[in-house]
């Protein structure tokens, strides 16, 4: 198998588990299950996990596609320091958070999915992966880069594309007509 980015999968699994737990909590409350108080916990836990996991971390290699409106939440998560960065923390956190979900029927599936999420985060932590924010504080650099590429032309028209102007003695120029 090639290199697997466990944290990427764990993040998607966490989002799915949060949604399942949230829905299970809603069913527990609306269906007036016994011990429905656990459902209230499930609704709250599902919502919090969803918000916490919403910002995608930077990929190890390749382009990271950010979720819509994730930057403000990414700023908050990156302010948490090691609590947000370290995947061992998430492994323990989800293992603990899934326990109350396993007491009533509607939230059992959410609890089991959270255990799976926790296990995948454990694998990610062992591989040394870390949550790194994406897109925070780099907009200025990009703009500066763009401005630098604009230079006034050196020759009068007719002239080729901008890149050609930098190399007028290359083989390409000599062979092309």
């Amino acid at each position, binding site marked *: 198998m090639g290199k697997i980015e466990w944290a990427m999968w764990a993040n998607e699994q966490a989002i799915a588990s949060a949604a399942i737990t949230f829905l299970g909590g809603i069913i527990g409350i609306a269906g007036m*299950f016994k011990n429905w108080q656990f459902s209230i916990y499930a609704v709250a836990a599902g919502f919090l996990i969803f918000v916490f996991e919403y910002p995608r971390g930077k990929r190890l290699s390749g382009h990271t596609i950010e979720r819509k409106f994730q930057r403000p939440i990414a700023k908050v998560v990156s302010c948490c320091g090691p609590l947000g960065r370290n995947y061992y923390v998430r492994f323990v956190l989800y293992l603990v958070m899934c326990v109350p979900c396993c007491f009533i*029927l509607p939230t059992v599936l959410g609890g089991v999915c959270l255990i799976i999420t926790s296990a995948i985060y454990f694998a990610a932590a062992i591989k040394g992966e870390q949550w790194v924010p994406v897109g925070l504080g780099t907009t200025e650099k990009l703009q500066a880069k763009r401005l630098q590429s604009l230079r006034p032309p050196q020759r009068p028209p007719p002239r080729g594309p901008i890149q050609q102007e930098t190399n007028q003695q*290359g083989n390409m120029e000599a*062979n092309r*007509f």
Partner: protein
Amino acid sequence: MGFSLRQWFVNIGKRYLVLTLWLVVCALLFWRTYNEFKYDPQFFYVHQMLGSWLCMSRASAAVLNLNCGLVLVPMCRTFVTFLRNIQRKVGLGTMANLLDACKGFHIACAYVICILSVIHISGHMINARNFSKYYNPVYADVNGVMYKDQDPMMVVVATVPGITGLIMMIILCVIFTTSIKYTRTANYDLFWYIHRLVAVFYILLLVHAFRGPIRRQINLDRHYPGCEYGNMTIPFPEPIPEPEAEYYAELSQVCDEGPKFDYIGCQSWMWILVPGMLYLCDTAIRLFKRTPTVSVINVNRLGDDVLEIQFEKENFTARPGQFVYVQCPDISTFEWHPYSLTTCPLSPGGHHSIHVRAIGDWSGDLLSYIVSLIISAHVLVFNEKTFHSSCSHLLIDGPFSSPMEDVTKYRTLLCVAGGIGLTPFIAFLNAIRHQTLKLGKLSRICLVWMNRDIRSFLWFTGAIRSLHATLWEERPDLLDIRYHYTGQHSARDSIVADLFFFKRLRYGRPIWKDLFHEFAANRPRETIGVFTCGPRSLAHIMKRQCNKKYSSGTKFDFYQECF
């Protein structure tokens, strides 16, 4: 110049029409099953206890059964290739269009399975609670729990449907999270291996309804539902449905015996039998076709990262445009990777070839493996990077159909390739060069090849140059090639190439609007085939251009293959 509805329908709309029809069928099945459980006297007592969520859960189960069967059909690649061969003889464009969208239908079915599973499991959770709360003390056999107010969790963990359902939902959740596009494109191996869990899913599905808690009455002739038996009263959690109220009101007579109940039984096997057998047969045929050994005849290294592998395989014939799956057991036992064929001799005894670009783990490992074979074999090499071997180090599965096969049905073609995406078109050019392909009414091929690295153009210059030379005498106007170099130009980027290449080289991406208008102006009222093989963003741009309305009446039919 606006949007052409007709062209949109030809290119994309037919698929949405089929999707809509399929959704209508699912909705009708849902509605029919819902009413069956609502009004059927067999389920009268169960319906009294559980209410409308009984109908919701059973209706969603029926649609789930249908979709679990249908989801397998697009993945029967040999069957789809067979249908494509029939389509070529029959000439139905719609059939080709729909066959090319197989993967999309598989994904649509998968989404419906996920959504309906949520409804199904929600329904059954509420059913479990209702079984517990509205325990029937009169007729104990109809109950799903042992006593009133028993923990509904027991309905799940102590029954076969409960446990199998829970495991199936976990498998579905894990498959879903690895299959969404972002995770799938980043970790294709993980997606592929986790997807094998569907085998467990289907085995559990077959036994899911075994001895379930929902019971149906089997002695309707001796006990009318709702009739008095032994002077007992039954609590009504929900009013009796209106049309049948009179029926039940009339039958308020004393019956001879109490109601007898039985399990509904497993019905999923009826829905997944045919698609399941089709899939198993398809897999068996593929396994059988993989067994003839592949003889690697020649391996050429083109540039830093591209290998041309020429091979020979028994009973293997392919058409230009088709692709194969390749496995190298010495690198990985389970991984199969798709590559378009670049040479397809139609006569037996010819060599087929594929071009493999080393951009991922497996392809990179293949390159290193072949290079190490060259070193270890101590073969006297000539032409600097040529290797001869008659031993088999590769397994080939295929060939399978792709949208690129339809090029010969157009008079004018616009073929757009990005990077290594030129491979299906090279198969056609080679077939034209060796005269194994009938040109038919094809009169002009405009080939646009875009690369980010100038050295990549060297991969196929030989093949293109020799085709041009072959065509120069009789059909000099057949082939129009445009090379587009889209990378950052610098002094280090120089290659040794001939005038033919440099005269056709352009810098930057093509201006698609101008290109399409050029075609529209030169070919009024004609239908032009636009074939794209490259990154998804390129296909998206081409699709948009093809769906526009051109004042000269020219229409563009769009085909794509993405990687």
